[in-house]
């Protein structure tokens, strides 16, 4: 298996709190890897640690075999990692166009232009709102903008944090379709609480609990493991 990113027993402290206490995972290329786990298990912190926003205090983050644990955030991003945070992190006062433009590292790059066109076809709403301030977008549209922004730079890995959070079911469906299309072009590490969405798009699954990876497997194993689902994901089998 060819892994793009690898976390090796990563530990992260925020102030005096020991949030990640040994997270290990491997993200295979051209796949969607899903991080599951309860609230407070350390999923968001894992993404932030990869991005260098809350740097690891112990352990390693390896990008294509290269140690990037101590790199500053902007250098990590320049490697080709796009980040879609939980709150979308769009700039509300900038227009949709500016929100996209700020991410583009090389405006003359043909691939970037193609990516832009391609992603705007997946999210046509953005084209309509192109000149409007991003703060006026709906929650789902903000999510689209954030994903589009992370994608356009030929980024080889997208870190997406709970995209379905707070969205109406119909939007979740649209999002699932979009992610299924995007995954043909890039690798995705997805944090998701919505098990339905996770099971629809994910290939490899990790479960975090108390800041540690406690499970790794594929969708089939996960669906069959009732005990695991009950313990860590709070999913109970319906008794018919």
């Amino acid at each position, binding site marked *: 298996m060819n892994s793009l990113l690898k976390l090796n027993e990563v530990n992260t402290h925020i102030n005096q709190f020991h949030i990640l206490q040994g997270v290990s995972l491997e993200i295979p290329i051209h796949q969607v890897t899903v991080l599951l786990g309860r609230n407070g298990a350390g999923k968001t912190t894992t993404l932030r640690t990869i991005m260098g*926003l809350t740097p690891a205090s112990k352990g390693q983050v390896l990008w294509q075999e290269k140690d990037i644990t101590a790199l500053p955030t902007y250098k990590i991003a320049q490697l080709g990692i796009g*980040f879609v945070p939980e709150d979308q*992190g769009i*700039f509300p006062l900038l227009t949709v166009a500016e929100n996209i433009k700020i991410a583009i590292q090389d405006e003359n790059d043909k691939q970037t232009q193609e990516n832009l066109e391609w992603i705007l076809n997946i999210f046509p709403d953005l084209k309509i709102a192109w000149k409007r301030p991003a703060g006026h977008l709906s929650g789902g549209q903000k999510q689209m903008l954030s994903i589009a922004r992370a994608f356009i730079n030929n980024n080889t890995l997208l870190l997406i944090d709970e995209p379905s959070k707070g969205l109406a079911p119909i939007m979740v469906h649209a999002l699932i379709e979009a992610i299924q299309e995007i995954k043909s072009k890039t690798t995705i590490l997805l944090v998701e609480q919505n098990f339905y969405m996770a099971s629809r798009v994910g290939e490899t699954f990790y479960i975090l609990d108390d800041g540690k990876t406690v499970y790794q497997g594929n969708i089939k194993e996960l669906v069959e493991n009732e005990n695991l689902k009950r313990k860590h994901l709070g999913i109970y089998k319906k008794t018919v």
Partner: protein
Amino acid sequence: MEQIFVLTLNGLATGMLIFLIAAGLSLIFGLMDVLNFSHGALSMWGAYVGLWIYTGLDQFWLQKLSGFNTSPWYPMVNILDFFVGILGGMLVGALLGWLVEKYMIRPVYGNHVQQILITMGVMLVLSEAIKLFWGSNLIAAPVPLMLDGSWQIGSLVVIKYRLTIIIIGLIVLGALYWLMQKTKIGLYVRAGVQNKEMVQTLGINVRKVFTLVFILGTSLAALGGMLMGPFMNQVYPSMGIEKQLLAFIVVVIGGMGSIFGSAVAGMIVGISEAFMLYFIPDAALAVNVLLMAFVLLIKPSGLFGERG
């Protein structure tokens, strides 16, 4: 009518000078959460160094060429000296700003209390250092010959130097607008004011943007200080802290991180000060403080600020 025109023009000129100081303050605060308490002192360094270069060059030519002061070329050389002084002052402002950012603010990055306290110390040291080099008394700051005097347009009197300040202010405002709206770096700054962390995750070295903005801000403050000297016919060490107070008021009224807000608030404060100084001179500052209190009551984030 004439009086109102003169006062308005005077107020606009004052407003522009305060705007030049406040613009950097507001950007630095909006982007980095640093209340740069040394801003006024940096502006005074611009004023003193600029004036020193300007009058020094002027004296140099006068001594070198006898009878030069009656030559028709003299006013031109004189105004050239003035602009060289402006450039020199701005360079010193930029240099000091770079040093302050790099050695004072960056080491305690992330701790706002420490940053403010340190810039306060920098203010102390810089303003005392001014006294060390130039003494603590007033120094005369002559208006360049070509900009001295006034034009008579009908019954209206336009004082040349004030108009010059307004024009320079407008040019700076236009340039800042272009920088903010049309360039990539301006885009980074506007985005950074809203969400610093996200800017970094897009592959942008936000620290570098901070440094640039800091240098830009302090060099504009130095420009403001340098232009202020001839406007008040003098420079003195405590001028920095006095104007800094007005700049604070302007930043609060206009809103953090908004250049446009600083410009509008600068004009409001400048004009209100000019009129008050004419009608009730004792209450000039009081009116500005009350204006600020009023804005804080109705819109705490300032007229054009989005965040509190």
